[in-house]
């Protein structure tokens, strides 16, 4: 249950669940104000790193990772 997991992406752009291989669904974002400003997901407009949450419909696993392209 790591933050910022490295997982595969499907051809349709969804993250692949590392437990069961099902395409996950990105359904939430949250700012992380404790993040280092040098983090790739740090967004200076927000003043925080933007975290994404992806739920697996197959096994309910949740992936948390920094948003890609968060830096403005």
């Amino acid at each position: 249950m790591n933050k910022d997991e490295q997982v595969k992406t499907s051809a349709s752009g969804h993250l692949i669940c590392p437990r069961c291989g099902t395409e996950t669904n990105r359904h939430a974002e949250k700012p992380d104000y404790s993040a280092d400003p040098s983090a790739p997901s740090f967004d200076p407009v927000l003043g925080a790193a933007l975290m994404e949450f992806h739920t697996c419909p197959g096994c309910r696993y949740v992936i948390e990772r920094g948003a890609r392209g968060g830096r403005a």
Partner: protein
Amino acid sequence: MSTQAAPRTKPLFIPVILGTPRKGRYSEHVAKFVTGEIARYPGVETQLVDVRDLPMPVTGAGEDVKDPAFSELCMRADAFILVAPEYNHGIPGLLKHVLDTNLKEYIHKAVGICGVSAGGFGGTRVIQNMLPILRELGLVTIFWDGNFSNVGSLFGEDGKILDAAYGRRLEKFFKELIWMATVLRYGRENVTME
């Protein structure tokens, strides 16, 4: 306009969290009663989780001290029922500590609160105090609450509730929680934020 129930191929998992470790706690009777009542609903699985049983160091901070088994349970859950006694109008310290150990496991899941108090207000003040905390954890609260007043005389020596009206009162609470859990599970699994 006609409506129909959303199909649920998987049962909803709605654990009940007993939020106090104190000796002599009447909230244990409440938690057992609530667990038994929610278990009657078709398509719902439940489990009583006692914060007293969680190996939770109090010197760590938030997710640094998460218990893997508890986190897995939270990840599996579709909704939560929190049984919270009111201590000096506030939330029990250990319950707050336990809740703080997870985040992603809660996001966009439903939560209902059963307040417990020695007096006649049914834990309304602890419920109100918990709402902003639960929101920040990503949980979605419901309109209905469970309010257990005068808890010192509400249960018999065998732990059975003495006022049968509580079962009827909780029906609305359970129905809304199940509705919210169903809708949010559909959203988590199918509605994409882009």
